[in-house]
């Protein structure tokens, strides 16, 4: 079945992931502020109605104005922006999500409507309402906000741990997936933390209150930071239920993931320590600047956490179902035969920029397979990542990409496309010279014949029947057969490797910096699952 082809945009030197990540982090932070804000306001409304805090009502009205102005405007619109950005980055991913979970999204929308109505009702009528009615509106607002998190959390956690959905395609099996509960509880506590820190800023802006009144409110707001004590346990729970390979990346397997994870933990730890020791135990006064700094740290922790959550899904956007470049695992075999650019109806925007047709083909391959996560020369650029490799290394490493780097999807193109991509990287690395020889068999007879030395030695050595050394012409069918045989041999050797893994209860992961070397990652994943995931990625 042909894949649906969409036009692919070039974001210039900026990595596409950064665009969606940047917007996503702002949206998540504001959405969690709205959820936690509701809980905080219910708490203060309770204090006000039981006369335990004379200034609670004043804080509530001021706080709610901030919430409406920030969360109802920027929070809501960045939510819509997330859909548009996701379409820009990966229309197939959002398509699958909408297909599977449109009723869940529709349910979330009903809660979103309730949240907006309850919020505006309190905003407009709150100051003139009695305590009971105020509490009613606030409880409804909070319930709606938290349930919108409940529903969206199921969809987001499904992307990393689809659980039984992979086998049964059952929506509820996917929704209540292994990471659903730890993720939901963790986000709830994060929401409370953000709301409490935002309250500290708002309280400091209430200049009509004296210092002792502000201190009283600050101490009360700080109690909502106490649930942070549960964060480490929830973090461990989350790490235990995510796939072993994803876990291995945040535990040292990927420097970037480990670093961002450490940043998120470090920032949370600092906030938690300050809250427990300074604000709750010693009841220190926290001024506006410190509160803002803690809020910024919370933003940093959210950013780190979201980056890790997105990053550890690699090479998938939907685990076991869709690779990050929008190719399904089940499509790889077909695309290796027919090519990934064959069905692509969209021409290049600047074909004259390239020195020959092979490079033009390479540019299309780059567009389809690489551009979602990589640029050519900018952020996460291919010329930086593969620029120091030799030509043979590029061919081998890209053709077996999922083994070169475990968080990369397999190269899903034919041999001609592989060679075109290799040549494109080489040409870009050479700073785009005007003349560039075609390395493989040209399709047009008028074009320059390839030289023998440009045909890769690994192709010549491994498929003597496929090539004609005198001309350097390549028999692509024979070469494809040879590649298939190589693949089978590779599978056999991997199976042997896995037998060893089973005995030692570890996973061997090839290191990227020293070819041939492996790292041992402890695992509890069943042996059969490991074989299946490695042989049929």
């Amino acid at each position: 079945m042909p894949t649906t082809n969409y036009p692919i945009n070039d974001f210039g030197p900026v990595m596409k992931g950064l665009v969606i990540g940047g917007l996503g982090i702002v949206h998540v932070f504001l959405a969690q502020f709205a959820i936690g804000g509701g809980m905080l306001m219910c708490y203060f409304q309770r204090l006000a109605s039981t006369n335990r805090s004379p200034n609670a009502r004043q804080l509530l009205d001021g706080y709610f104005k901030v919430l409406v102005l920030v969360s109802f405007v920027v929070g809501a619109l960045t939510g819509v922006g997330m859909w548009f950005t996701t379409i820009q980055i990966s229309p197939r991913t959002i398509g699958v999500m909408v297909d599977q979970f449109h009723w869940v999204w529709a349910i979330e929308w009903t809660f979103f409507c309730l949240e907006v109505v309850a919020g505006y009702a309190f905003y407009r009528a709150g100051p003139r309402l009695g305590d009971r009615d105020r509490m009613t509106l606030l409880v409804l607002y909070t319930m709606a906000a938290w349930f919108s998190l409940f529903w969206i959390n199921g969809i987001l956690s499904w992307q990393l741990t689809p659980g039984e959905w992979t086998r049964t395609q059952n929506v509820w099996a996917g929704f209540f997936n292994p990471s659903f509960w730890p993720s939901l509880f963790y986000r709830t506590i994060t929401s409370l933390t953000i709301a409490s820190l935002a309250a500290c800023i708002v309280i400091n802006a209430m200049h009509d209150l004296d210092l002792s009144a502000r201190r009283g409110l600050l101490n009360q707001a700080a109690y909502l930071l106490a649930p942070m004590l549960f964060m480490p346990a929830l973090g461990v729970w989350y790490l235990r239920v995510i796939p072993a390979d994803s876990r291995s990346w945040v535990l040292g397997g990927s420097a970037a993931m480990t670093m961002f994870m450490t940043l998120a933990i470090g920032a949370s730890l600092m906030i938690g320590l300050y809250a427990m020791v300074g604000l709750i135990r010693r009841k220190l006064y926290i001024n506006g600047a410190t509160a803002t700094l803690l809020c910024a740290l919370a933003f940093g922790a959210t950013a780190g956490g979201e980056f890790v959550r997105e990053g550890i899904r690699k090479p998938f956007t939907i685990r076991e179902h869709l690779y990050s470049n929008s190719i399904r695992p089940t499509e790889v075999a077909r695309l290796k035969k027919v090519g990934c650019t064959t069905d692509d109806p969209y021409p290049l925007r600047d074909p004259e920029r390239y020195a020959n047709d092979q490079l033009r083909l390479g540019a299309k391959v780059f567009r389809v397979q690489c551009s979602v996560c990589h640029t050519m020369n900018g952020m996460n650029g291919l010329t930086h990542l593969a620029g120091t490799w030799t030509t043979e290394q590029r061919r081998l490493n890209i053709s077996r990409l999922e083994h070169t780097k475990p968080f990369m999807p397999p190269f899903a193109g034919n041999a001609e496309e592989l060679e075109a991509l290799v040549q494109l990287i080489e040409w870009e690395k050479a700073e785009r010279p005007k003349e560039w020889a075609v390395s493989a068999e040209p399709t047009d007879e008028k074009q320059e014949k390839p030289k023998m030395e440009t045909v890769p030695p690994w192709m010549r050595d491994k498929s003597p029947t496929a090539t004609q050394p005198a001309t350097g012409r390549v028999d692509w069918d024979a070469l494809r057969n040879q590649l298939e045989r190589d693949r089978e041999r590779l599978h056999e050797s991997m199976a042997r490797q896995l037998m060893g893994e089973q005995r030692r209860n570890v996973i061997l992961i090839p290191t990227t910096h020293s070819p041939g070397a492996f790292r041992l990652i402890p695992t509890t994943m069943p042996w059969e699952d490991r074989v299946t995931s490695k042989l049929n990625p």
Partner: protein
Amino acid sequence: MDRVFPFCYPAPTAFYLSAYMASLLVHLVFMQYVLAGSAYLVFGRFLDRPMFGARQRGSESPSDDFQPDVIHETLRDWLPFATSAAITAGVAPLLFLQILYRKSFYTANLLLFHRWMAIVPVLIVGFYLLYLLKTERIRRGPAWKESAIALTALACFGFTAWSWTENHMLSLDAKSWAEVYQRGELMHHTPGAYLRTLGWFLSSFPAMLLLVAWQIHGRRSDIATASRRLTYKLAGLANLMLIFGTTVLLYAILLKPTPAPHESHQGDADAYAWLLASGMIIQLLGWMFQSRLDSLRRNLLLVCTVGQLAVLISIVAVRELGRVARIDMGELSQAHADAFRVAGLPIFIFFLIFNAALVAWCIRVATRGPRPTRP
């Protein structure tokens, strides 16, 4: 194929089409309130009437000398909420749109790229400007300042409306996609898109004025409900814009900028055209009788509401008929059937009713007077 559009399609397709059109209708009501309302605010301050005896009082601030136009005041007060409601209500049709016409919608999004995504920051700016208009400083400041802010907000919402129209037009023009992509165009200029945007803009006024009339009528103690001048203004403007706006919009929709290779539903188009004409006549008559009275009458407002609903339903249906004639629905019906088999519909219906009841409760709590707090 005897049944009327959209029920002439297989059940899943008909279901999603109906859900899309119904949710779009709700979104349209709020969208029209925001679009026409922000346009009204540009001139609203100039419609304020000099207050009797203001000169003799010798008040210092110019705004003290004027009695505010009640439409202007209502709009200024409610536009931020209406914008929030329009955005929230817009999420549902956006969801069904993706199920119905995924490829064409996503492709148009992708082709317009940054230009399309620009609607998000532009809407944020427009939204904040509406809050700015509510501040005391702007209310009491010079009229030109308020008009300038309202004009900027209108430009933001107008840009969003034009972007949606442009996106819709491009999504129907599949043959041009590869060419548009290669040229790297971030705009899809077609005369039809401009005309449609103008049509949407003009036809937004009747819906906005009707909603404002209901709001004013709801405030029973308001002296404005007993103003002949007010009813005359509401009715005159609504009828004028109803005729011009609907005509321009209908003309733009029927322009057929791209060929329609698929099944046409001429019979259905005729039926909806009759509904449109009926709705227009009902509404025109309702407003005409209203303009002769000194106060807003509930029954006449109900008549106008029925007419406006008929107009909106037919516009949405005619717009959709234009789309299905350009997209192969047969090809998509399998995808719709697959989506329909996914679990969750009964739970959605339960929460839709449950949360609608809670929304009604919220409104009741907020609108009733304060109750004594328990000791």
